[in-house]
Structures are given as structure tokens and as C-alpha cells.
């Protein structure tokens, strides 16, 4: 009976061994094509060079693919002991697989009917980290095991442990123990205390759940568990454990993930990836010098944050609604260099770059392009008289369009400069109707606007979406008196040896003549000095500047785009879901109240300590004070006067006063009445009143 039992047992065991051998052989031949080759040296697995991104003022704003591989001697022995105790206590005794651990894991998995426990040794984990995906399945597990066997056969234990310590993920973006020590304790891995080492050793198992920055209690529980494991494995004494638990862990503050530079960095990376490929930037070990001024960027962030916080307290908002957002772009006029780019109020909350990718309706801030086209095409000047009155425009195939003014009032006869200063919608609609949307679109393209623009009359009121990046660039053409510099983000790119691989060269194009553009610039100065943007002056900004506010229907978007001699900046404020920014029924945030203060806070700090710089006046420009209603040179009877800048050839003098009953001249026609409607085509160089 016993003999039979032994015989059966013998057969079973033999069959088992044979099965294992056959299964392993079969698996090997099945998987051999998918098994990866091992490198000759584990020290080289971390050698891809990091790419560094710098601001124009020399601050390193981002490192990509940063690794800090170190040798085992540079790692605190507390850490190596702790990681062995908690991850693989029989590390120095097995050859890639821990029999006991495996049986334990098998039992757990079979009893739970799922892969609940890995039972992976350090070698297996390294094998997985180096070659395999993180999905849990048996085939991947077997491959991982086979490679673990090979790792053990090829490298010694210290080499494996060192590679493991340099590879594993510790949460908070830290790969490798050196970086983890920096992230959590701002110290070198060799200087870790027992408690700190135990905390780090507990992280690879659950880098997010036991992350001390977000789950401090859990992290400390895990640390205690690691210390207990160390005691059980006789790696430390109970006294040492107790002593360390009483010590201070000295956890530092987490790195700020809401770094506002990251909106700009994302844009830089996108551009390089598009031009040169992903590998080039992430594995090239490059040094990228950008145009960003980190000081400006901080100011942009602070200005937006402070003002948005103030606005949040005023606006009516649904509970739990998304926060109010802002975007800001500042461009250096003479070069096109983007000096600041804020894509949102908090990068950690939302990485969507509203400065570039968010095309929102610009509202009235598009009007300067309409006015400029009218002045160029119809021979109008800032002193040309137009009539602000109810208007209905027939649009073939649709309902007639009746644009409304923001204040729903009409100013009557008014000169162009005043109309722009007051941002009168009717006048903008009239001008676009006269000149045609195609010509306005063509002008906008010359200003560098690339977004699609609707070929319709409502374009006059800024109904085609634009980004702050485009607006800042287009406004810089005005500040530059017609020279368009393509905005750019990258100054140069160097390889790791310092050889320049890419350089930006200034390539300004004179799109418009200075004397054509200066009248518009002067009109936009009027907007800030006495128009819808006068909040800028009220807030104490004294530098010469020109700009334009913009507010869209229902207060959904608030814009302020403006420039000084050197910098053009565009600010947008609004909700991501296009909700109105209402303060109370019928009232809401406008470009002047929501966006302009951010512009002022930002520019005031940017220009702090700098002397005001006037815009250069082209040779063929003359200044004159005109009557704001007739557009003729002001006299003692003028009720309201305004200084305008016009081209030299523009005649601003009033025609002689006519007798009460004028007689026909020799042509048989009556002379034009003063200030009366005139054919604009006939009077290129005179003040004209367009036929409504």
C-alpha cells in the first residue's frame, strides 16, 4: 500500500518536473521571438541627455528627460536596506524568482481568482521597467520572469540593485532615488536619514496613494511598515526604528506644478516637435534658449491672478462653476519676440493654452483694422465726419442687420477718431459696409492675423474668433508703424556640445507706410487717453500708449489690447464655457473693467523705472486740433475739440461760408454745403461725410 502510494507520488512528481521542463521549453520557443535583447551594460540605460529650456534672462524653465543616475556608493545604505526589506527580502539569495514569494502570490491570486499580488522580485521589477508594458497579464509576466533570469545570469546583484534604484518611479515626477531625494527632501540620496529612506522605499509600491505631498498619513503608515520590515529582516534594531520614528522627516514643500511658464514651454515644445520631430526635442539633449522673459512672465501671472481674484468676488456665478480665466501675451515690437505668455490662471488646474489655442470673439478690439482699411481705401482721415444713427443693412438672403451701440444711444455727427475712442458700433458697421469685408480681411492678414475671418458685415464688430497671440502680434504692427515681425518663441537651439542648430533672425516686413499707420496709432492713443480705455490713465499709467478695448455680447469676452513703443500686450478674460460675466442683471464685465486692469498692472511693473518713450512721428504727418463735430480746424465756436494726426496732404480747413441762398455756379451745380454729405471718392484729401 505504502509502496503504491510512493509509486504514485513518484510518478506525480516526475510528471510535474517533466511538465515544468516542457512548459518552460515550450514557452521559450513560443516567446523567444518576443523576448528582448539585454544591453551589455546596465550603467548605460540612463544615459539619454536631458533637454533644457531657458528663458531669455538665463533662467532654466524646464528640463525634459532629466535623470540623475548614481552609483550604489552614492545611495544611503538605509535606503538600499529599506528597499530590499520591503520589496524583496531574499534579493541576495534568489536568482530572479523568490520561490516563497511566488507560492504566496500564486496562492493569493488563485484564491482571489485575479492577479492581486505580484510577488515580483527586484530583478523582475527591473526587467519590467526596462522592457515591458505595465499591463497585468500572464504572458507579460512569463517574459518578465525569463528576462529576470537572464539579468541574474548576466549581472551581479549590486549592478541590478543600482540599475533598479536609478529606474524606479517614486511619484511626483521623480524617477530614480537621487531625483526622489531632491523632490521630497532637497538633498542627495547619500544623505538620506533612516526615516527618509524608509519613506522613499515605501513609495515605488504605491507612488500616488502613499505620496507624502498628497497623503501624508498614508505615507507615514507605509514608512512605519517599511521600518518594521527592516526590523524583521534584522537590518535595523527596534531601538533604531523607534528613534527614527521620533525624528523629523523634513519633508519640503512640493514643487509648484502651476508654474505659469509651462504654457509657454508647451508651445515651444509643440513648435520644435512639429518642425524637427518628437525624438529631437525629448532625446536630443538640447539647450533651447527662448524669448520668454521670466520676470515678465511672473508679472503676467501675478497681475492676472490678483485681478481675477478680485473679479471673482464681484461676478454672479453658479456654485461649483469653473473659475474665471485669463490669457495674456506680450510681444516685443521691434523683434516679434514673445516675452510673456500666460495661457490660463493656473497650469495645474488647466493646461489648455488660452493665449494661443482659444479663439474667442475680439469684439471692438477688431475695429482698428476696419478703420484703417476705410482710411486707406476710401481716403478717410481721423478727422473725417461720420454719422452715428440707427442703421439697418440689407443682407441678401437673410434678415436685414441692425447693429446696436453698446450704450444704445446715437452720437450723431462725429469724427472718426472720436468714433473709435467711443467704440461706436454703428460707425464700424458703416465703414465695413462701405469698404467691403474682403478688403478688411486682406488688411487683417497683412497685420499677421491668420485665423479664419468671416466674410460678413458683422466682422466690423469682431465676430470672428482670434487668439490673444494674434492680437498682440497684430497690434505690434501698429506700434511698429507698419513693420510686421512674425512673433517667435525660440531664439536659438544648441546641441549638448554648444553647436547652434537653429537660430532666429529678425525678418521684419514693412507692410504699411508709417505715415499711413500713424493716424490710426494716434486714434488709439486717444482711446487710452480719453476713450473707452481711459481706465488705464485713471490707474496711473503714464507712458505713451495706444490700444482698444473689446467686449462681446452678453459680456462673454473681455479684451484689452494695447501697446507702448516697445511692448504690445493682449489680455483676454472670460469663462471657458462661454458663460456671461455678469455683475448684476444687465451689467457685466467689460474690456475696460476686466482686462484693462490686468494690462495696466502688468505694464506698470514691466516699465517700472523706465522713462516714457514717445512714438516716433513720421515726416509726412501733421497734427491739428479739430472740431469734434465738423472735423475742420477748431475755432472759437467749436464746442468740443480734438487733436488729430493726419497725413500732410489732408486739408482740414473749413470751406468758405456760403451765402444763405447759394446761386448755381458756372457748372450749374450748387456747391457742397459745409459738413454736408459728400462723395468720398471725389474728396480724397478733404474731410468727408460718408453717405449713410
Amino acid at each position, binding site marked *: 500500500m505504502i509502496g503504491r502510494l510512493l509509486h504514485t507520488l513518484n510518478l506525480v512528481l516526475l510528471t510535474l518536473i517533466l511538465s515544468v521542463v516542457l512548459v518552460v521549453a515550450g514557452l521559450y520557443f513560443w516567446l523567444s521571438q518576443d523576448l528582448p535583447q539585454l544591453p551589455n551594460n546596465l550603467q548605460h540605460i540612463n544615459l539619454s541627455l536631458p533637454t533644457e529650456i531657458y528663458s531669455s534672462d538665463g533662467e532654466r524653465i524646464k528640463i525634459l528627460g532629466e535623470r540623475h543616475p548614481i552609483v550604489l556608493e552614492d545611495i544611503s545604505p538605509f535606503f538600499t536596506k529599506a528597499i530590499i526589506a520591503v520589496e524583496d527580502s531574499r534579493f541576495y539569495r534568489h536568482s530572479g524568482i523568490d520561490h516563497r514569494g511566488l507560492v504566496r502570490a500564486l496562492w493569493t491570486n488563485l484564491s482571489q481568482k485575479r492577479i492581486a499580488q505580484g510577488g515580483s522580485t527586484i530583478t523582475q521589477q527591473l526587467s519590467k521597467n526596462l*522592457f515591458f508594458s505595465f499591463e497585468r497579464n500572464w504572458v507579460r509576466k512569463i517574459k518578465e520572469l525569463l528576462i529576470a533570469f537572464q539579468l541574474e545570469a548576466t549581472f551581479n546583484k549590486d549592478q541590478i540593485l543600482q540599475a533598479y534604484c536609478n529606474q524606479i518611479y517614486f511619484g511626483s515626477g521623480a524617477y530614480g532615488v537621487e531625483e526622489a531625494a531632491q523632490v521630497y527632501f532637497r538633498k542627495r540620496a547619500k544623505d538620506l536619514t533612516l526615516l527618509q529612506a524608509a519613506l522613499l522605499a515605501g513609495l515605488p509600491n504605491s507612488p500616488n496613494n502613499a505620496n507624502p505631498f498628497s497623503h501624508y498619513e498614508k505615507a507615514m503608515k507605509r514608512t512605519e511598515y517599511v521600518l518594521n520590515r527592516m526590523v524583521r529582516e534584522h537590518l535595523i534594531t527596534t531601538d533604531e526604528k523607534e528613534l527614527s520614528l521620533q525624528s523629523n522627516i523634513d519633508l519640503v514643500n512640493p514643487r509648484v506644478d502651476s508654474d505659469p511658464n509651462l504654457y509657454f514651454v508647451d508651445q515651444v515644445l509643440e513648435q520644435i516637435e512639429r518642425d524637427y520631430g518628437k525624438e529631437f526635442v525629448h*532625446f536630443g539633449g538640447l539647450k533651447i534658449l527662448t524669448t520668454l522673459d521670466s520676470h515678465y512672465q511672473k508679472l503676467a501671472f501675478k497681475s492676472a491672478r490678483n485681478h481675477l481674484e478680485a473679479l471673482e468676488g464681484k461676478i454672479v456665478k453658479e456654485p461649483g462653476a469653473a473659475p474665471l480665466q485669463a490669457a495674456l501675451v506680450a510681444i516685443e515690437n521691434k523683434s516679434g519676440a514673445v516675452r510673456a505668455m500666460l495661457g490660463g490662471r493656473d497650469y495645474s488646474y488647466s493646461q489648455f493654452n488660452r493665449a494661443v489655442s482659444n479663439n474667442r470673439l475680439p469684439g471692438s478690439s477688431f475695429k482698428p483694422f476696419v478703420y484703417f482699411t476705410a482710411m486707406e481705401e476710401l481716403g478717410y482721415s481721423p478727422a473725417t465726419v461720420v454719422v452715428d444713427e440707427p442703421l439697418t443693412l440689407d443682407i441678401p438672403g437673410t434678415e436685414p442687420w441692425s447693429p446696436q451701440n453698446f450704450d444704445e444711444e446715437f452720437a450723431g455727427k462725429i469724427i472718426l477718431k472720436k468714433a473709435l475712442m467711443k467704440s461706436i458700433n454703428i460707425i464700424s458697421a458703416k465703414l465695413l459696409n462701405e469698404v467691403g469685408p474682403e478688403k478688411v480681411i486682406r488688411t487683417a492678414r497683412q497685420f499677421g492675423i491668420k485665423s479664419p475671418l468671416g466674410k460678413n458685415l458683422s466682422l466690423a464688430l469682431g465676430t470672428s474668433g482670434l487668439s490673444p497671440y494674434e492680437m498682440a502680434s497684430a497690434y505690434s504692427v501698429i506700434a511698429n508703424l507698419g513693420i510686421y515681425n512674425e512673433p517667435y518663441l525660440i531664439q536659438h537651439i544648441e546641441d549638448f556640445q554648444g553647436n547652434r542648430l537653429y537660430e532666429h533672425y529678425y525678418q521684419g516686413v514693412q507692410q504699411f507706410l508709417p505715415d499711413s499707420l500713424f493716424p490710426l496709432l494716434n486714434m488709439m492713443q486717444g482711446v487710452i487717453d480719453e476713450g473707452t480705455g481711459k481706465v488705464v490713465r485713471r490707474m496711473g499709467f503714464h507712458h505713451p500708449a495706444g490700444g482698444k478695448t473689446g467686449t462681446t455680447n452678453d459680456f462673454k469676452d473681455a479684451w484689452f489690447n494695447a501697446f507702448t513703443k516697445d511692448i504690445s500686450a493682449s489680455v483676454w478674460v472670460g469663462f471657458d464655457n462661454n458663460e456671461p460675466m455678469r455683475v448684476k442683471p444687465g451689467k457685466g464685465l467689460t474690456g475696460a473693467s476686466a482686462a484693462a486692469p490686468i494690462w495696466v498692472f502688468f505694464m506698470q511693473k514691466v516699465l517700472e523705472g523706465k522713462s516714457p518713450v514717445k512714438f516716433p512721428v513720421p515726416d509726412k504727418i501733421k497734427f491739428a486740433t479739430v472740431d469734434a463735430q465738423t472735423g475742420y480746424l477748431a475755432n472759437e465756436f467749436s464746442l468740443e475739440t480734438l487733436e488729430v494726426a493726419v497725413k500732410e496732404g489732408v486739408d482740414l480747413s473749413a470751406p468758405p461760408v456760403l451765402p444763405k441762398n447759394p446761386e448755381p455756379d458756372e457748372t450749374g451745380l450748387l456747391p457742397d454745403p459745409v459738413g454736408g454729405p459728400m462723395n468720398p471718392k471725389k474728396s480724397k484729401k478733404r474731410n468727408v461725410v460718408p453717405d449713410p
Partner: protein
Amino acid sequence: MKFNGVRKSWHVAAGLIVLTAVLSLEFYTNLFEKSVGYYLKWQNHKRPQLGRMWERDRQSLVAQAKIKSIRSSLDLQEETALGISSFKHLFEGLSPGFPLVVSREKFLQLYYDFPGPWSEQIISSYDLIEMDSTKNWDRVFLKRFGPWITLQFIDRQNIPIHELFLSVDTLFEVQATRTVKRGTLEDSNFTTNRIFPISEFLPVLKSLDAATQKAVFPEPRWFLGKNYYVTRVGISDVPAEQPAQHLLLGVEYDTDYYTGVLLIPVAMELANNMMSQIEKADLSDPTSNEIPPSSGESP
């Protein structure tokens, strides 16, 4: 029967002993893992480079290849720029959309290498000194845009210190004031009776005022610095194509490898004047270097 039973038991016991030995061996020496590990190590080179690590390696290689290709392209551009031998080549090499960058040193070399005062028309040498005084001038960025050529004198950060625009027409027009050709004066259609040894021409040249000297003859450094040995000069008997009312003065020189001619358009009146003076000198005293002052007569 009994014997069979004993033999069976012995087999079982032996089997168990072997099994125990194998299991013990595995337990204490990890024989199985080591065997598989060493077998895989032996087969390592036959297996493909798959997985995350190799992928990273491959991407790194792709990046390095890209960097190498960019660098060789830039090196080629730099070599091309270094190989430019004259302003003529520099400007002719410019095409719209393909800007060119030359170093400060190269620009100065070309600037002073032009056989005539034409470079001064691009930018005055005093302006160059002024620009250089800030020690910022690093390179010159040239680009062609329609009929215009833009020259930006840039600093190390590529910020323009000085910018100027030249019309392509003007450039080519002025460049025509100095033409270099391979061959002798005869090859350039100069007639024998209007060709003179340099020794006969130089006294006449010396007699001219400084401005006229510059207009008709390059700085002697141009020949001396290049080891060009000036041998003869000739004055053409047919008007030059550009500009009008000009004759060509040809200066023949020998180099170590070939003979070349520098052609300079000279106002017809001046050319004839020089011609008459040379002939007069020939008639009066062929050995004398003394040239009588110009009579001021037109031939």
C-alpha cells in the same frame, strides 16, 4: 513475484531520492533559474532589440541622427560662406527665401577685397568702425526680398545693430565697374596698339589726382596681397556696354597658375587723355619715367 515487488519499491525509492536531490538542488542552488538564465544569455545576441529601453535608445539615435544632419547642413552653409571669394559671388548667391550669414571677418575680407571704392557705397568704412566700437558686431545676415537685398549687421544674439537695404539693380550696375576675366588683354579684344607695359602706364596714373586714381585703378594692395604680378594695361577702342560713354581699361596680371585681366570702365575722355599721355611719353623719351604734365587737350 516478491522479487518484482522489491524491485518496484527500489525504483520508487530511487526515483524519490533523485527527485529530492533535484528539488534540493533547485532549492539551494536555483539550478533551474540559472540554467534558463545562462541559456538566454547565450542566445542574447540572436534576439531583437525590443521594449521600452531599446525604444528609448532608438529614439535617442533618431534624435542624434537628426542633429547630425542639421549640423552637416549648417557646416555646409558655413563652408559655402567661407568659400565666397568676392562680393559678386556673395550677392549672386542670394536667392529669395534663402538668407545667408557671413562672419564679420569674412565680410571685412570681401569688403576690402573689392578692386575699387565700390564697397564704400554699401557702407562707409567709418560706419564699420563705429559699429565695431561697441564690440557687438558678430556677423552679417543677408537676405533677398524681391528687388531688395537687406544687410543686417547683427550681434551674438542676432539683434541687428545696423541695417541697410540695397537695390539689386544698383548692386549689379556698380559691380560691373570691376570685372575679372581669365586670359590676356588680347583675349578680351584689346588691340595690340592700345596695350602698354605697366611701367609706361604707372607714371601716367601717378600724375592723376587721388580721386581719379581710385576711379581708374584699384588699391595696389589688391594685386600685391594676392601675388598678382601686373604686367600690362590696355585701353579698348570700343565703348564699354555699361556705363555709356566709357572705354574699358584692362589691367593684365600673372598669377602662379594663369593670366587674368581686370576690366574697369573709364570715362571716355579720361581714357583718351591717359592714352595720349602714354603715347606722348613714348614719343618724347622712351627711357624716361618723367611724364610731362597733361596739356589738358582732348584727343
